[in-house]
């Protein structure tokens, strides 16, 4: 999938940085076409791929910059997007942020990076750890011997099997941290029926391990347990994972064969896997008896209760509930059982914040909204849903939990300390009224 040329533009469409990988592209005209045909016409909001005059433009936006790839060939679009997201990630790690200022400030480094990760339009390596070995922000002292050794190491890495971990890492204390973060997307109808629920989760690992450790990771995934064939006793807590994707360090062959997740972890933080599940999702919060009554033309009443449907040992934190109000709201009178609520005109909603929400408890909300009568009523209020955001530590909405993590380093043979953390967050958590 050759990339023809790669451009980084600012929000107006001026070229900040460009690299041409094939002769037949004129970077200036590519940038100009993109600016006039995509940015100026606002086509960018419609689709991330545009074919204009035989050239395909694939792009991603990062803060106030456009990262654009142009190609005349029938390239693999998914691969290009994967590459673009990697590129943006690399830039974030290197420059702290990927925006106009950072690109301008680190122009030279960026060009160096592009030299390293793309050759003749083909991606070479996007592994940050590896790139850090050859491209550093700090001035490098060149010692002939060390440099040579470093070069050898580098070429070994680039061509070796385990490109993401370098040799000879040593820690005094060998530790592994695992975070399971789940985002809950729920849509509840007026009558309390759950119309849509799913959880998208990710497992993030932070490893501080010496040597070349071999890790094995186990979850209460249904298929995984079946393949281990000793699951009959714990059937209740099996869960079904869909759309599982892994970090490149996981040996996919082994996973296909016997559902075992085994890998040599990169050093530091990385995202081990991503998954999605829509079965057995119990929404952690529920709105009870939501009601929204119009009393005449100039008054509305909202009434509902929020219940935390999780173990009373846990607490929800930073719970924010947004109750939308009509455009012509004049004043509000709100009574809440806990936390603070206020009408925020810039969001056209009453924003109710509760810092700590104990599991199993119920909190009530009622508000009277005074409206100003409008002389021309163009259309009725659309009644947008009540939306919620929250965090519940130590809860996985899907019921997933880490069964084991075995770390085995054949040479050093140490015992690693393992830490596991769970957290459930609100994704799109909405309740119609």
């Amino acid at each position, binding site marked *: 999938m050759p990339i023809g040329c790669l451009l980084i533009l600012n929000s107006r469409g001026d070229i900040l940085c460009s690299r041409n990988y094939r002769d037949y592209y004129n970077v200036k005209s590519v940038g100009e076409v993109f600016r006039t045909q995509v940015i100026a016409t606002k086509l960018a909001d419609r689709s991330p791929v545009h074919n204009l005059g035989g050239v395909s433009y694939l792009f991603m936006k990062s803060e106030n910059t456009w990262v654009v790839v142009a190609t005349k060939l029938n390239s693999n679009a998914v691969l290009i997007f994967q590459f673009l997201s990697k590129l943006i990630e690399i830039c974030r790690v290197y420059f702290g942020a990927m925006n106009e200022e950072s690109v301008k400030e680190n122009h030279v480094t960026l060009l160096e990076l592009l030299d390293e990760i793309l050759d003749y339009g083909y991606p070479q390596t996007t592994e940050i750890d590896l790139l850090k070995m050859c491209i550093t922000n700090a001035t490098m002292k060149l010692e002939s011997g060390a440099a040579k050794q470093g070069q050898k190491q580098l070429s070994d890495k680039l061509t070796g099997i385990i490109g993401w971990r370098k040799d000879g890492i040593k820690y005094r204390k060998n530790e592994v941290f695992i975070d399971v973060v789940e985002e809950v997307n729920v849509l509840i109808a007026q009558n309390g029926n759950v119309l849509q629920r799913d959880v998208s989760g990710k497992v993030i690992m932070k490893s501080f391990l010496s040597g070349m450790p071999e890790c094995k990771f186990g979850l209460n995934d249904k298929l995984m347990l079946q393949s281990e064939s000793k699951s009959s006793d714990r059937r209740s807590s099996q869960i079904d994972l869909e759309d599982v994707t892994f970090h490149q360090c996981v040996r996919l062959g082994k996973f296909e064969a016997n559902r075992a997740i085994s890998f040599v972890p990169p050093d530091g933080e990385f995202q081990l896997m991503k998954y999605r599940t829509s079965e057995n999702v119990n929404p952690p919060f529920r709105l009870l008896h939501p009601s929204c009554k119009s009393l005449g033309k100039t008054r509305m009443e909202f009434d509902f209760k929020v219940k935390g449907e999780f173990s009373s040992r846990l607490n929800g934190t930073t719970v924010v509930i947004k109750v939308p109000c009509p455009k012509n709201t004049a*004043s509000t009178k709100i009574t809440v059982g806990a936390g603070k609520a206020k*009408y925020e*005109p810039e969001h056209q909603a009453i924003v109710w914040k509760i810092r700590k929400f104990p599991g199993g408890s119920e909190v009530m909300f009622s508000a009277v909204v*005074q409206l100003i009568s*409008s002389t021309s009523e*163009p259309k009725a209020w659309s009644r947008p849903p009540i939306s919620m955001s929250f965090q519940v530590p130590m809860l996985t909405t899907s019921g997933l939990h880490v069964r084991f993590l075995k770390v085995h380093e054949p040479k050093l043979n140490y015992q690693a300390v393992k830490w596991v953390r769970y957290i459930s967050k609100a994704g799109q958590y909405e309740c119609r009224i």
Partner: protein
Amino acid sequence: MSLRLKDLVREVRGCKTAAEERAVIAKECAAIRTAFKEGKEAYRSRNVNKLVYIYLLGHATEFGQMECIRLMTSESFAEKKAGYLALSLLVDENHEVLTLVENQLKLDLSHRIEHVKTLALCAIANIAGEDMARDLGHEVATFLESNSSNLKKKACLAGLRIVRRVPSMAETFLDKLTNLSSEKNHGVLVAGLTLVTEGLQMEEGESFKAIYTKNIKSYIKILKNLVMPPYPSEYDVQGIADPFLQVKILQLLRVLGTGSKDTSDTMSDILAQVATNTESYTPVGPAILYECVRTIIAIESSPDLRGLAVTILGRFLTSSSSNNIRYVALNTLTRVVDKDSVAVQRHKNTIVDCLKDFDISIRKRALDLIYTLVSSQNIRLLVPDLINYLTFASPNLKGDLTEKICTTAERYAPSMQWHVDTLIKVCILAGAYVPETAVNKLISMVSKSTKEMQGYSTAKLWAEISKGPDTTLLSKEGLLLAALWCVGEFGDLLTAQKPPVVAEDIVTSVTSLLHSTNSPVVKGYALTCLAKTSARFPDIKLLVAPTMEVFQESLDLELQQRAWEYLQLINSDDPTIFKASLDRMPTIESESVVTSYAEEQQHVDPGTASPVVATANPVAVTAGPAAVSTAPQKKDDGGMSFLDDVFGGDGASTATAAPATAPVPAAGGFSIDDIFGGGGGAPVAVPPSQPAVPTFTPPHPLVGKVDVTMENRYFKVVIYSSRPNPIHPHKVLVSAVLANVSTTHITGVELLAAVTRTATLQMHPKEQDSVAPNALLVQNISVHNDANGNAGAKPICMKIRLVFVAGGAKESCEFTVSGIPS
């Protein structure tokens, strides 16, 4: 706690992004809503002022309208003023709240303080809708007689709005302004003149024209005082005394002078004085001159005066550096050109120079003007200029330009040689933009011309395409098509040219073209060209065959078929078939246009020129009656369009044609307008009546087509709408033509009609109230459409009830007619 307006403005200006600004506005709006809801007296006017600011930024402020009205009713002048200000901005005539305001306006109009009255008048001038204009019109008119000039001025402005909304009020106002000329205050004069000019242009003010014409001397005197020394020092703008008033008086003179010779004579002196005495080097001067020129053109002025006007316009073009002035000059010249083309011709060079202007709109205007200027006398001078311009015109103008050159060349071409040359030149310069019709025209002309001419044009085109296929050549599709066709047809003539062309060269050039072009049409032409060439020069068959074989597998079905067919012909054993089928085409008779060339016609006896018309006539005459009864639609596409073109194409032959075709309308029942395509403006449709029923010829030129028909056992009803008087666009004469299609004698025919509230109608007396079988009965109805005061805003909708006695029994039927254009 309540933000001051100043602080709000500062806060909004401090916002960096649009989202931030929206948030600030949303917050402030919420605060204002809260304040309104709580009914705080203290900050009412401040809040309304803020609301006006928010409205000016483009945000929704509907919720504040009630508060404006409340503020309007306040006793304090400051609050009232704020209320009125907000009212005239936040509310427009379509809001329902206006009905609430009306009463307060009425009260304020009779307020004891003058300033309050002016506030109310200003509000009326800004927001009055149709209903309000009707209700308050008479009260406003009374202020025209007040002593205060301020009130008078405002009343004139309010009156202007009222008259525009309800034209029938024009009489009331015009009646009160008859002695406007004795007014001393310039403000009142300017406002009053605006109202009078507007009113007199309306149908309702027509009758006042005579009264105002009587006073014309005093208006001229006012104008004279402004133009002639000693200049009044008052109202001086850059050395010119009250230019606004001058412009207004000139406008009034224009209205009064149009169509009246005497009045025009009275004012010609002063117009000449204005035209000569006004200096054009200040920005103000040209404004007055322009207005003066417009008046001179509009009225029945003498040729001298008109010459002066065109000279002024010419001066605008040469000496002015302002684009706007040159633009209006060109624009006005375009309007003068049909009245006084000779005077405009004098400035031809200046106009052609405008093609080099930087401003595209000026170039466009100049082009339009040149098109209208072109005539058979100056075409040899002007068209080369246009073609020259083609070389550096911007691409988006080229398409239009080529088309116009082609049509003008067609209309006025002095000789065929010249016409062919011009078309070839255009094809070479702008091949990509040449319309298909022009290419066809060129081809047909070449095919019709003499052998020398054919050889000459083919050689000329060949020279262009033999250069080899580069991208510029490939983009000129029109050129390629014409060239390929000519080379294919007359390839053998090329060998006689100097230097002679070898057949092999033709094959190589065309083959390389064939392979490099993308257009399937060009490819098709190229294949045919190759096949024809091989028929002209049989020894190159072998060179052509491989190319044909390549295209036998073409994805394009058309090309594939052609390749197979031609290859079959080339390989056929019988040389006569091969020769005969690829022989030269018979002369193409272009069926669309018959052009006659002025220079050639001079040698031609008029008797021989007329056969074109003579042969055309029988077609029309025979097509007429036969087609009318069966398919009137068909008739329009067939013989008629042919006739249309014959007469449209050549103005000279029209005169000879007219008597010949004159009997046609009588026989066929359609107006002569149709034949000349433009006399009546609109095509006349003929009622699809049965052969035996006589047709009806409407008394006036029709507007739009015949509308709706109704048909039952007894009657076939056709509705015509026509405009008896073009000056009165509101008045429509609707004729209902009832054709008795039954075999019984129908008596006691009565037609009742009803229209919507905005229109009024008047029934004309019928000639008879009984209809014999296969006879007609016409009922005329005058409809005065007053919808929204502007003509043609809504089509008329009419309900018609028909009562009659047929065969002893009383029958009735009802139907609706909608969409009668007004």
